[in-house]
């Protein structure tokens, strides 16, 4: 600007945009992180590939719906129906407990609780904490609280004369309750997330028409949050279906001659059965087809659920982004 000489300043060297953006370090490092991403996906593919290639062949209606009554380790006759039944029973029972409590808690946190009260902070802290408790500790808790304390007390009052414990032993109901406690944070977090995404304007619209808070929550807010609640429920189910540690002492049975008949019966379980087949088989090579088959059934169950949940969530997030 301040050129004092009459001669024009020398033209700046022409920029070659294309060449100047290439930077070897950046290129290399980007490649490295890309490789890490790829590696994780490759491991995932490897695991799934191995399992489905080896296990897919063994799947048959007889295997799915056959009973395990003769010999669990006999390749020709073993079926996983009792385990599928047991796993389904415990997760369905679990959702009956966890969804109402989880959705109510999430509603309280987003709709009722004052945003900054210490009380709310404590509930949030407890939820976060619960999410990090090791699953085996939930197992111990189920044993110490549900079976010994609750079950034991029930027995004292309901069956004082029964020689055998009725409630105070490992049972379907206790395993389900233990899992419900474990998956509570999953449901709360997913529900809360979807509740927060609902615009304030909707609540205002309802309240301005003279709806009570409860009417607003029940008829306007919660219906909107349904996809989130659904995702939470599915994630909880898929998480719980694959868990073994919490049910190890609270309900899973190594072998049962019949399907569980009541809430106080023990049950055979798909995930636990994978553990049994992996570690207690008399001849791991011979029983390998049953093992792989069982893993495939378990994976199909948990994975399919997970995939559905992830897709719903991605969809909801995309819609939200579009609305924002």
């Amino acid at each position, binding site marked *: 600007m301040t050129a004092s000489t009459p001669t024009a300043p020398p033209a700046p060297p022409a920029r070659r945009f294309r060449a100047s953006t290439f*930077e070897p370090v950046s290129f290399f490092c980007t490649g490295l992180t890309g490789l*890490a991403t790829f590696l994780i996906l490759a491991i995932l593919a490897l*695991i799934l590939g191995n399992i489905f290639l080896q296990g897919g062949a063994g799947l048959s209606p007889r295997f799915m719906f056959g009973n395990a009554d003769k010999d669990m380790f006999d390749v020709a006759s073993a079926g996983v129906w009792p385990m599928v039944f047991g796993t389904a029973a415990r997760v369905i029972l679990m959702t009956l407990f966890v969804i109402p409590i989880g959705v109510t*808690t999430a509603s309280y946190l987003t709709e009722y609780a004052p945003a900054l009260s210490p009380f709310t902070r404590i509930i949030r802290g407890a939820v976060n904490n619960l999410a990090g408790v090791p699953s*085996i500790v939930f197992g*111990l808790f189920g044993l*110490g609280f549900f079976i010994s304390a609750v079950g034991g007390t029930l027995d004292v009052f309901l069956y004082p004369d029964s020689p055998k414990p009725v409630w105070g032993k490992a049972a379907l109901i206790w395993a389900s309750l233990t899992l419900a406690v474990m998956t509570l944070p999953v449901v709360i977090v997913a529900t809360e997330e979807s509740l927060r995404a609902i615009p304030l304007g909707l609540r205002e619209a309802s309240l301005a028409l003279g709806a009570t808070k*409860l009417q607003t929550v029940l008829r306007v807010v919660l219906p909107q949050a349904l996809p989130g609640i659904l995702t939470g429920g599915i994630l909880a189910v898929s998480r719980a279906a694959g868990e073994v*540690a919490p049910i190890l002492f609270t309900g899973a049975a190594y072998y049962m001659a019949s399907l569980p008949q009541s809430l106080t019966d023990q049950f055979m379980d798909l995930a636990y059965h994978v553990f049994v087949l992996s570690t207690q088989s008399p001849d791991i090579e011979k029983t390998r087809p049953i093992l792989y088959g069982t*893993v495939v059934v378990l994976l199909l169950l948990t994975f399919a659920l997970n995939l559905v949940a992830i897709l719903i969530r991605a969809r909801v997030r995309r819609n939200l982004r579009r609305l924002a």
Partner: protein
Amino acid sequence: MGLHRGHRARPLEWLAEKIILLISLTAILVVFLIFLFVGREAWPVVIGATNSSLAQEYQEIIPPEDFARVPPARLRQYLGLTRQQFEQMDEETLKDLMALRIEAKAQMPDDPDAELNTTEWRYLLGPHQWTGYDRPAYIWQPVSQIHKYNLVPLFIGSLKTTFVALLFAVPLAIAAALYVSQLAPPRAREWLKPGIELLSGIPSVVLGFFALIVMASFFQALFGYPSRLNAFVAGLALGLAVIPVVFSIAEDALTSVPRSYTEAALALGSTRWQAAWQIVLPAALPGVFAATVLGFGRAIGETMVVLMASGNASIVSGNLFDSTRTLTATIAAELAETVVGGHHYRVLFLLGALLFAVTFISNLVGDLVIHRLKGQLEGKR
């Protein structure tokens, strides 16, 4: 206009609100109950109220002839049976057991260790020269007559597998988080993220199975170490469980760094990588740290993977290729065989309480850090 009715006009609404509040206390209640009921079973060990000394145990002898005179509850406790076991046995069996106990006393090892209460803190944590050993050692061996309850081998086992898992998982997960959140083309991002998160959908028992059946043999063939199941294999499999945890949290933290930071850097002519590495990563560093801490909590608390892939030998060694036994696997493997309320049972609950405490703290730290980071980033925005 008749507006003066106040809250009392809607008792149902009021009631519903109170019920909602009560139900949402469940989360707090549960944490408290876990603390209480896991702690309750472990407490006698903590204060030294358990006694595993054989000499103490066999002090009292009830001869089979006295069967009718002793109350059943007393007898059950004397024989160390669970209620269920006790109810299923007939008189003859019980008498046999009483006789066996007399024999056991006779055969009580002539061993100074039999006098020890091995649940005292000095035996739980310190080395002891057991009979037959030529120097003091840390031993976890709650079998046969003298239960050795030293926790050190289990701590080492847990730390070893966790170390391997984090070493493997953290760099990989954070690099992937950086790539997915900052560097990948937006279209790829849409499926990369759910893809990696799918990993968290694989149950840990399946990871354990995969480690046991496939990885163990593969790595043994590759490296040629002697024990097929060891801390290394267990750690790698554990890493697979940790990756999605670290990835999700780190990715979230990186994504929450305002887009304007990156744009400012790009506008100054830096490459995407430079913007990600020099601007975004430092801004999100607390979140990445938190991801690692929470990954640690996940790794140390995982049960099935290590139970199936670590070999479960409680050896004190720094070698990653030795079999090892973790806190979690010990609880899972041994609790079923213990007598409810016995010292073995209580020591296992003590392990559980310790695990609870460790994960409690790591969660607290992780959450605090994330909370602070989010506040900071939002404040700056």
